[in-house]
């Protein structure tokens, strides 16, 4: 009975054996992840073709028209900047195992902070934008401070508390926009439009908004802090084994607090970037999608700042091209979300093969 269940003739399925992998070289991991990404893009393209977009149209909308029209390039860069910043925000939190799901709330509060400065004309005109950015960072930090303290002092799970604070932030925004901050001229529920010197400018001589440079500067700071500074070195231990970190003398609580505050500050700055470069005012829905896109980008990039830039630009292209598809090909917006999800699943699934291998048994 036992002998009959195992035969020397094996079918194809039995010849594959799943094993745990010891380790994988960095470049192999990179190849694997890009393989997953390509597969995701291929499947996405397939879905769009099935939905009625021709192959040549697809190439045209996603590649040719994006990269040949300076208007489209600008649109992509304008959208990329806040995406990069929320991506960094998610990444710095993840690096300390602080799961900041409240990026959206901090984006809202950052923009509220910036608008406060703009509305009440605080500070000299020449430094107004700078002050708006700083206050946005402070407001973002303030909005993450509560969940951070709850987590560090009372072990309250930050996933829940940061998530729920999103709704409070949103309703507070509505309270302002339908109340005292209502546009005094049109009476629409958005803040009065920023003055010219309260907006992030286009660079003199160049066509694009300064926001992308702000985002890249933050990327450089991020790289420095995590890869070069002592903070980054020590933070790796907090991530990898916090008990060991404590016993070797690292003040884990302080490090997690710093990372969480940095995450909140970045989200706040992202909120400021959106309202000062895209909308030029505080609107009801300026923040929609940024929170979860930030988490998604942080996840896809595995907290690597350079990959954050790459995936942010990709998402921005998807959004810009998606708008065209919606208008000219009647592709519903949910299709764009489906594409995002497909890419995430493919990249996430590729992670399985970093830890496992399939061997063919001879």
């Amino acid at each position, binding site marked *: *009975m*036992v*002998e009959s*269940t*195992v*035969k*020397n003739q*094996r079918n194809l399925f*039995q*010849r594959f*054996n*799943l*094993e*745990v992998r*010891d*380790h994988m070289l960095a470049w192999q991991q990179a190849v694997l992840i890009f393989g997953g990404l390509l597969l995701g893009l291929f499947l996405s393209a397939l879905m769009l073709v099935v939905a009625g977009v021709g192959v040549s149209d697809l190439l045209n909308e996603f590649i040719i028209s994006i990269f040949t029209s300076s208007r489209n390039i600008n649109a992509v860069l304008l959208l990329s900047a806040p995406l990069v910043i929320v991506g960094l925000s998610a990444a710095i939190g993840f690096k300390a195992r602080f799961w900041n799901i409240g990026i959206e709330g901090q984006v809202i509060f950052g923009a509220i902070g910036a608008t406060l400065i703009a509305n009440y004309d605080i500070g000299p005109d020449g430094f107004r934008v700078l002050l708006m950015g700083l206050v946005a960072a402070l407001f973002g930090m303030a909005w993450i401070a509560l969940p951070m303290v709850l987590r560090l002092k009372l072990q309250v799970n930050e996933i829940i508390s940061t998530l729920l604070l999103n709704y409070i932030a949103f309703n507070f925004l509505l309270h302002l926009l339908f109340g005292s901050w209502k546009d005094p001229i049109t009476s629409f529920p958005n803040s009065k439009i920023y003055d010219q010197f309260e907006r992030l400018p286009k660079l003199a001589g160049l066509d694009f908004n300064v926001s992308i440079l702000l985002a890249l500067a933050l990327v450089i700071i991020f790289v420095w802090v995590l890869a*070069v*500074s*002592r*903070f*980054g*070195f*020590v933070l*790796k*231990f907090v991530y*990898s*084994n916090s*008990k*060991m*970190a*404590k*016993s*070797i*003398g*690292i*003040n884990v609580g302080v490090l997690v607090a710093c990372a969480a505050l940095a995450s909140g500050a970045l989200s706040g700055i992202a909120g400021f970037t959106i309202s000062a470069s895209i909308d030029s005012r505080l609107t009801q829905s300026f923040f929609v999608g940024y929170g979860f896109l930030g988490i998604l980008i942080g996840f896809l990039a595995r907290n690597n700042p350079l990959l954050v830039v790459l995936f942010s630009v990709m998402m921005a292209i998807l959004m810009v091209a998606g708008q065209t598809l919606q208008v000219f090909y009647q592709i519903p917006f949910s299709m764009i979300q489906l594409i995002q999800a497909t890419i995430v699943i493919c990249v996430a699934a590729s992670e399985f093969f970093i830890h496992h291998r399939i*061997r063919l*048994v001879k």
Partner: protein
Amino acid sequence: MPPTSVVGQLDPAVKNTAGFVLELRNIVKTFGTFTALDDVNFNLKRGEVHALLGENGAGKSTLMNIVCGLYAADSGERLHEGEPVWISNPREAHALGIGMVHQHYKLVKPFSALENIQLENGSGPYRTSLNRIRQKATEISKIIGFEVDLDLPVEQLSISEQQRVEILKILTADARIIILDEPTAVLTDMEAENMFTAMRSLAATGCSVVFVTHKLREAFSFADRITVMRGGKTINTVLPNQLDVTELTTLIVGETVVESVNRSKNIGDPKITLNEISMKRNNGVNAITDLSFQVRSGEIYGIAGIGGNGQNELVAILSGLRKIDTGSIELNDVGRVENATPIELRDLGIVCIHSDRETYGLAYGLNIAENFSISGVLAGEFGSYIKVKHKLIHEATELAIEAYDVRGVRTLNQKAGLLSGGNAQKLVIAREFSREPSIVVAHSPCRGLDVRASSAVHEYLLKARDRGGAVVLISEDLDEILLMSDRIGVMSGGAIVAEFDAPANRNEIGKSMTGHG
């Protein structure tokens, strides 16, 4: 498959009793460029208890993982009851009656013991299969003398009871070849003996038992045959009465390792004094009660005692992770330090080698250079807050792994978790000792280490002592305490209940460990 009970296997008519139940020939297994098993031969007789001995990294676990289908061999033959077989996953191994208990138990903690067994062996409706398995597991427990409450959640069971659940799991699946990977690593002597007695009675019913170990004593006391592995090869298969401890050790390590007593010649002034310290656990019960002792420079103070008598808490206190409620801790040239943080204690020259290396010793997910340099980075030895100097780190790490003989390092960027136990411990010691600590607290520093690595660890402790340091050695292994200590304290119920000067009488110490002197 018709149910076959353990009793059923007593049937003398079982076929093929003379030959090997399992035979492995010329097994080769590589991981990337690393050859873990190089032309290995192994065989197992019906009804025997077989010890697989070897150092860390000799390939014992890899070999057994091939037997139970977790790994596929690159080449080689496997014969089961004389017939060639393929085993490419644990399910197929099950079907052949091969079951393995891994070193780290694979149990679902909130489930009851019975449900865990069912999870692996259940079929059909939940209730029916639960009842069937309860009946079978109870029957088997009776035969081999296991006592486990099958209805308790696994998390409420002790380590040795959890191991019994694992063994019952494979026996309920009609296993006739039972593989135990380092079964005694987490057991006390008493528990280990009970476990082996059960395995012997199992062997008497016709099952075959393989246990992987690096403890010679176990192999001598409980095995019918011993197979020795070294460096991915099988060296020899011997009978326990054929050779003595030294000969067997030589087979295992390829050279003779004999540790001898080396008492301190230069004991100086007191370095650290613990004065009637007490500490409550979170549930309000005292973990440490009025514990006092003093260690002098140039002295190893051994703390003997059965685990769970406050040793973990004492280490946590001495490393600054826990605060005491009453009492004082004094360093003779500094003053009282009971409120110092971990980093302050380190800066005062106190280092700890924790028994749980995976949790407190190393960050397994980070690389060797990072794990080595972290304490230096915190102390500002490798650059400033703004910039960590990775080049300095690499140079220092290279020197240290050379000086402390950390082996198996292919590159400094390799994850620390890939090091074998002995080499991982050497890495911890390299880090802690590189700053010449004046007080060393070592808690079971040789747990899970083979003979050679243990003797190296002991060597470093002796060096720290001879440099004028004070060493506190906390261990459940009385042999280790007797070998190393200049003075011995016995810990029981959270206090030092007796003290002995070396050389001490083993029985006296044993008595005070169990009966409060």
